[in-house]
């Protein structure tokens, strides 16, 4: 009796994962994931990819990138087919009905989907054919051909991974998102952009001095960042990534820091000290109109928009030490969110709306990452250890965070699941990589 009643509930949850995706609750800035809390990862098997005169290891490499993407997605678990004894004939042209025993074998091992691919060369390009089959019925669900220069191998794998995620969840995947950050280079600290998995870093500025806290525009075409182009001028600039075109948005007297673009892209929230101490302003980028939101003798900084654009979360030391506060986008309805600990700063609102990540000081006196719900009801610390953690930024799917962590003066960028598991270092080499910001999907 009891067991019978569970089945439809779970089936509903899983069906919800496919059809409903994200449901918006009408009232507040919170989006409920239809798949939670009982969501079970979908077991996927990645078969050995076939190489048709492709460069050495290209087929293996693309399969490895794909598997890493699928694992990171948190939607799928990747079954070890070799261990299960499931493999295809390497001369096979196409998986079809003739391989039914293979699909049955996979289904018997709980594999819900099988991925198979062929890597070939055409002219100077790589050609990847990616296929996704239902593990139970052997039906071909996805068939995609990607063509690109050899340097795009990882992008091809990311595309196929995103295809799986969007097919199974109705949400865009994150495998082709990027992370902007600041990194020491040739004596200056410059803005960089890298793939979400830490590959393919690209330098965006070459000012030779100090740039900080890049943040994405919603259309992913531009970054806004704190620029010390030299020691006399400190501004907030916008750079268009595809062209390198750059313009200054804010050049008020004093320190102009911590820019954040509104979800609709129209308003830039930032902190400036033109009034004597750091205050939060918004700039209407269409009219160039400035609006002052805070009026305090203390420091107000690090504004970050709620997903709806109706509210801002920010840091203020009006109560003594730095704490997290909320206010409406017009500066009204200010209330303090954090009360635990004497140091809470650098807030970032999850794109799903359900959590705000920030830097907290642990009981051991370490600067770690914490999460709090916007109503202040739930709070938890998700990192531990000796590193000085900073600048949390959410993945667009709300399942991961990136942040910087400094140990012995070396600062690197890490990815971590929202629940604090599976921490992964993204930067390698160099000594200082900081202020990461995850692009929209």
């Amino acid at each position, binding site marked *: 009796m009891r067991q019978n009643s569970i089945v439809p509930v779970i*089936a509903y949850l899983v069906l919800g994962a496919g059809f409903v995706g994200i449901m918006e609750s009408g009232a507040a800035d919170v989006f409920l994931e239809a798949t939670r809390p009982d969501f079970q990862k979908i077991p996927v098997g990645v078969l050995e990819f076939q190489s048709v005169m492709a460069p050495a290891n290209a087929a293996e490499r693309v399969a490895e990138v794909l598997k890493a993407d699928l694992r990171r997605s948190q939607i799928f678990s990747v079954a070890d087919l070799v261990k299960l004894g499931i493999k295809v004939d390497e001369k096979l042209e196409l998986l079809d009905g003739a391989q039914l025993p293979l699909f049955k074998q996979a289904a018997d091992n709980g594999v819900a989907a099988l991925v198979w691919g062929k890597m070939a060369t055409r002219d100077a390009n790589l050609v990847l054919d990616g296929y996704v089959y239902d593990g139970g019925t052997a039906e071909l669900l996805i*068939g*995609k051909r*990607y063509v690109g220069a050899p340097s795009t191998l990882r992008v091809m794998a990311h595309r196929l991974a995103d*295809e799986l995620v969007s097919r199974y969840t109705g949400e865009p995947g994150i495998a082709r998102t990027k992370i902007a950050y600041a990194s020491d280079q040739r004596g200056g600290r410059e803005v960089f952009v890298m793939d979400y998995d830490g590959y393919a870093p*690209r330098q965006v500025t070459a000012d030779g001095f100090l740039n900080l806290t890049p943040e994405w525009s919603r259309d992913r075409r531009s970054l806004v960042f704190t620029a010390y182009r030299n020691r006399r001028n400190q501004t907030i600039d916008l750079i268009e990534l595809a062209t390198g075109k750059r313009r200054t948005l804010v050049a008020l007297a004093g320190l102009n820091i911590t820019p954040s673009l509104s979800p609709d892209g129209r308003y830039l929230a930032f902190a400036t000290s033109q009034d004597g101490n750091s205050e939060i302003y918004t700039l209407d980028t269409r009219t160039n109109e400035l609006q002052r939101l805070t009026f305090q003798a203390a420091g107000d900084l690090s504004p970050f928009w709620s997903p709806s654009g109706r509210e801002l979360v920010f840091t203020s030391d009006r109560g003594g030490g730095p704490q997290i506060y909320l206010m409406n986008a017009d500066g009204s309805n200010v209330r303090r969110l954090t009360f635990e600990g004497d*140091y809470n700063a650098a807030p970032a609102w999850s794109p799903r709306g359900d959590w705000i990540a920030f830097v907290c000081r642990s009981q051991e006196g370490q600067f770690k990452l914490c999460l709090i719900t916007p109503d202040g009801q739930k709070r938890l610390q998700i990192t531990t250890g000796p590193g000085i953690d900073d600048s949390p930024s959410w993945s667009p799917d709300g399942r991961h965070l990136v942040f910087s962590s400094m140990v012995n003066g070396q600062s690197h960028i890490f990815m971590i699941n929202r629940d604090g598991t599976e921490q992964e270092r993204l930067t390698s080499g160099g000594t200082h990589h900081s202020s990461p910001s995850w692009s929209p999907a």
Partner: protein
Amino acid sequence: MDTHSRMAGLAAAVGLLLVLALGCSSKAIQTASDSSTEPGVSKEPRVSEQDLLGKSPSAPGQGRQSKDIAVAKVEPSDAARRHAEDIRRERVATAIAGIEDVFFGFDSWNISDEGKHALEVDAQWLKSNPEKMVTIEGHCDERGTQAYNLVLGEKRAKAVRNYLTELGVGTGGLTVTSYGKERPFCEGHDETCYQQNRRGHMTLRVR
């Protein structure tokens, strides 16, 4: 408990098969080629995409794939070398003038008695050289967040400027800025170094 979770797992698998059978079967996502280029865009190689099933669209998630993010290459510059040279020359000029820095306690921007003595010396020199321009840089130790340390550093720099003006130095030649924890003087990670890095650093502008 075990039976329930096993049941849940089974049910999830069944549910999935349902999703696939009802929702996804025999439907294909048809995405237009993604290799379009905007004018003036960098030469980052693009990947083109073709649907091999070629059936009607409208599967869940259709159209949710966005374009690749294109990032232009930037030319390396020797700006860093020029900045470093400027800083070196200013440091020499500041040392020759005998202008001293001020140090602070943790999370504090109060000027200590020792700091006041240093600033009295600085004020004497500045009053006798009113044409000179000085930048007061606020600095912090590595603890805490980048952003909050920028604000803290500025508080330190402004506390220094305020004390100098109290001593009769004209504000015209004084500029304040903050580098937070971004440009430390001492690279160690203990209090010996931290106290070196919590400072109001005076730099005499050259030129």
